[in-house]
């Protein structure tokens, strides 16, 4: 009997799908899980169209908090992304605009060029975007010189969904088996 693949978010190693087509996901948006069946999955390659340049940043300064409109997903779809920092910046991830991701009680972890030294596969950078629940990035330049460009590249998977209104997180009427997709911050 073939073994079922072990799929889940933030899995260490080269990026993999978090579910197989036909399985059920619960997408965390606005403090509730919304349930969907996954109909279709395809890869999103790291490539120039989904690489963002947060612009020139002076030494010691920070960029504007920038909406990752390039990662917006269509209705009834979500994306799974990992990030790779290309320039010497420290980037804060927000989802929505004022809600920091990767946060502790007093500190917020950031994406840097060092991330790939200890996490070559980027699994700790993984995040999810459901429809227009945008992610945002702010680049901080901690060097002693101005940066002409501050780039972050992404890759991952696209998931096409069918809503399952018969299930409700609020009413605690849950599917028998489902995978959690943290598509916004947990406040």
């Amino acid at each position, binding site marked *: 009997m073939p073994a079922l693949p072990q799929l889940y978010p933030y899995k260490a190693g080269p990026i993999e799908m978090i579910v197989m087509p036909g399985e059920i996901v619960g997408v965390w948006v606005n403090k509730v899980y919304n349930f969907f069946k996954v109909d279709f999955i395809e890869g999103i390659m790291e490539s120039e169209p989904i690489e963002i340049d947060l612009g020139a940043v002076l030494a010691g300064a920070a960029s504007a908090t920038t909406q990752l409109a390039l990662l917006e997903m269509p209705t009834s779809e979500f994306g799974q992304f990992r990030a790779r920092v290309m320039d*010497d910046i420290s980037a804060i991830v927000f989802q929505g605009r004022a809600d920091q991701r990767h946060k502790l009680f007093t500190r917020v972890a950031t994406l840097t060029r060092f991330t790939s030294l200890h996490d070559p596969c980027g699994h700790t950078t993984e995040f999810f975007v459901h429809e227009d629940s945008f992610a945002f990035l702010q680049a901080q330049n*901690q*060097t*002693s010189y101005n940066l002409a460009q501050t780039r972050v590249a992404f890759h991952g998977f696209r998931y096409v969904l069918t809503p399952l209104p018969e299930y409700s997180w609020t009413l605690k009427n849950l599917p028998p088996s489902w995978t959690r997709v943290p598509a916004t911050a947990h406040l």
Partner: protein
Amino acid sequence: MEARGIRKSSAIITIAAGATPQNLYLRTAGGQNPRTVILRKILAYNAVAATTLMIGTGLAAAWAQQWPTFRLVNNQDNEWTEDQIPEVELSANLTVQTDVLGVLVQVEVDEVGS
């Protein structure tokens, strides 16, 4: 060899005055914890006269040489790579001095931090 930091480079530095230390590589000191610097590669060119190259930290009276003196042959490109340079890790900007002015120097470093 496992990378300890991220590889960065200095600008091309032209020595402005003989026997006077000047900045060579400014380390990244922003953020919660300033990074440290490991010198990995040196490229120096001199068309004035054979001279010496000293790399260290500090300017003026604060100058402290951190590696033995390198000999620069006149009219040659002089190169040292990481397997030839002791892995000294410093918490300061790198500075440089030579005996004569006009020498061109550029270095690569690993910045260690997070």
